[in-house]
């Protein structure tokens, strides 16, 4: 049986949706993008040109919910399916767009450069339990305006895995879309086999900015999945009650959903988020807070209630170095997200409130993700009778270690961790140099980097991507280590 966890009563879910629709109808939301305002006006919605406030009738929300797809198939660069985002399926990707990296040699938090991005991508590409990559690190050695497309460029070249990404400037979309089309060979092919998901974050409370509106409109036009990342902070820009924040999250997300379905009915969207239980001492947005975690589970439950694919930023930590806090916050969040069946779980590698990526944490988190994948399989009956025959066999032999039954099942019945997890005897651990998990993670990173099989993308496509990337005669191919 697959383990389950529920945090909202059935009738509460209904109430949340009704109240969110009332908010959109009576209070409305803010549209800062002219194209979005135009789309809404064309659907008969009054958008106040001065206040930019749009009031959305409940009927339109209901209609939009009917056309949004229940699941999204995500494909890798080569066109093989990676995950069906729907039901209780889960898929992990690293936390995205980190401003910093935790340097694994100096243990200092510093600005990332292209080399960090490439190494990170090469490692993600080889991690068994993290199915997608994200445009995880903001490279400080390229101009900010080029950041979005540059991250996409590097990710497409160095990894076969699908990408969770997004735009920080409007102009990026067209270029990033062209890169995706270049890989697929055509717009229709990209629509048929989505390779990237674009995050779009409304600004709490209830504002869809110019940039984020544009992102979801553009994605809807091309059938590229949009991941709505509403991020209410309890007690700050959202009600302090967790349920209150869930209502606000629903209203913000439904507003985005309506826009996309008006652009193109059936446009793929994901009910995602990154809310936080605002810290009342430090004025920070803790991702490792137990309240953030339950808030995440709550809004995901609403998304599931609406039969939509879901996403959450879970499995992160607010710690600044690799320590116990990093481990326990990440472990708790990841397992909870897995049990909940959040379809896309973003966060691996991330610490310090979604600002810092750690390649060491990334490979450690891969283990947590693996354990979570195993845990949600539940307990399975393999034999009939279940154990009697084996107990009988133990009358002759004192153990079952080499029994056919053990050999047949041990790899499926147990999650076998990598060497990152220490399970040796004290003596062995001492003999091998009293290593910490950070030491073992570093060894794993080094090994994965040396094992990276090399860029497998076609020369012609790399040329094409480089052409699309082109900016002021800079040849970005020189930045690659091909």
């Amino acid at each position, binding site marked *: 049986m697959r383990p389950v966890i529920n945090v909202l009563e059935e009738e509460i879910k209904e109430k949340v949706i009704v109240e969110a629709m009332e908010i959109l109808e009576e209070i409305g939301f803010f549209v800062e993008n002219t194209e979005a305002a135009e789309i809404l006006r064309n659907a008969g919605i009054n958008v106040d040109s001065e206040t930019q406030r749009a009031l959305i009738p409940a009927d339109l929300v209901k209609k939009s919910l009917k056309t949004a797809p229940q699941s999204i198939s995500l494909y890798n660069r080569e066109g093989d399916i990676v995950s069906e985002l729907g039901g209780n399926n889960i898929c992990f990707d690293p936390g995205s767009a980190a401003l910093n990296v935790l340097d694994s040699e100096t243990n200092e938090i510093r600005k990332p450069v292209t080399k960090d991005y490439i190494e990170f991508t090469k490692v993600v590409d080889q991690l068994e339990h993290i199915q997608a990559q994200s445009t995880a690190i903001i490279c400080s050695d390229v101009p900010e305006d080029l950041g979005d497309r540059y991250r996409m460029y590097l990710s497409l070249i160095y990894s076969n895995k699908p990408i969770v990404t997004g735009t920080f400037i409007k102009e990026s979309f067209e270029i990033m879309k062209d890169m995706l089309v270049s890989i697929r060979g055509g717009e229709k092919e990209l629509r048929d086999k989505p390779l990237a998901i674009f995050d779009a974050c409304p600004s709490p409370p209830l504002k869809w900015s110019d940039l984020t509106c544009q992102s979801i409109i553009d994605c809807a036009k091309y059938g590229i999945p949009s991941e709505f990342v509403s991020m209410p902070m309890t007690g700050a820009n959202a009600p302090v009650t967790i349920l209150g924040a869930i209502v606000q999250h629903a209203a913000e997300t439904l507003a985005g959903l309506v826009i996309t379905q008006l652009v193109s009915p059936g446009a793929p969207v994901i009910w995602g988020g990154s809310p936080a239980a605002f810290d009342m001492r430090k004025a920070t947005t803790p991702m490792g807070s137990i309240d953030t975690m339950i808030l995440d589970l709550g809004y995901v439950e609403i998304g599931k209630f609406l039969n939509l694919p879901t996403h959450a930023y879970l499995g992160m930590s607010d710690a600044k170095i690799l320590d116990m806090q990093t481990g326990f916050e990440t472990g708790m969040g990841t397992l909870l997200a897995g049990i909940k069946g959040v379809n896309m779980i973003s966060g691996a590698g991330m610490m310090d409130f979604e600002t810092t990526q750690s390649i060491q944490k990334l490979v450690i988190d891969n283990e947590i993700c693996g354990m979570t994948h195993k845990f949600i399989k539940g307990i399975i009956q393999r034999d009939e009778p279940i154990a009697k025959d084996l107990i009988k066999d133990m009358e002759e032999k*004192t*153990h079952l*270690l*080499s*029994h056919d039954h*053990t*050999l047949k099942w*041990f*790899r499926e019945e147990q999650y*076998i961790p990598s*060497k990152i997890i220490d399970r*040796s*005897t*004290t*003596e*062995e651990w*001492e*003999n091998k140099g009293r290593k910490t998990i950070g030491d073992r993670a570093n060894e794993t990173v080094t090994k994965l980097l040396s094992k990276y099989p090399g860029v497998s993308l076609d020369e012609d496509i790399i040329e094409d991507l480089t052409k699309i990337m082109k900016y002021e005669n800079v040849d970005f191919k020189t930045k690659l280590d091909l």
Partner: protein
Amino acid sequence: MSFAENCKEAILNGNIELAEKLANQAIEENIDINIAIDAFSLAIRKAGDLFEEGDFFLPELMRSAEAMKGAMTVFEPKIMEDKVDRSLGKVIIGTIEGDIHDIGKTLVAALMSAEGFEVFDLGADVPVGKFIDKAEEVGAKIICISALLTTTMVGQKKLIDQLKERNIRDKFKVLIGGAPVSKKWVEEIGADGSAENAVSAVKLARKLLEE
């Protein structure tokens, strides 16, 4: 595939039947017994290496050891007949009195036997005197004594004390094992060694006898 390759496959796949069949075939075809056994030995060492590298797990290692044992049982009459001395020596192994944890000890016994030691496994909850009496009786070179509990590990000290009292401490190498055992404990009681896992235990036993 050559005979050696077949042996390797039988051992690494833990195929007991095939290992026995190959041993019988070697006898029928009059293959030099030392060459035949070497082929199997090479394979079981490979299994140990794979285990240490993390590619092999305990069930696979144990099964390889059992396949090895299967082949050696077939060779036994021939070894006796030809008076070939292949044994690395006799080993007494068991879990100390008051302790019923014997999976670790069983593992070591299986691997030692596969390596070519003649192993006398006394089981679990074995009184100290019995270890010594048996060792004297068969002329063992090594006594391996396991304890999983901190409360029973004093039995390991008791064994060494009794060997000293009987003035036969030098006749045997004493290896101790079990979760609470540390290098410090080895030194404190004057044992000859302990190992971090079953594969290293076999290597240690070989090394001690070579000294």
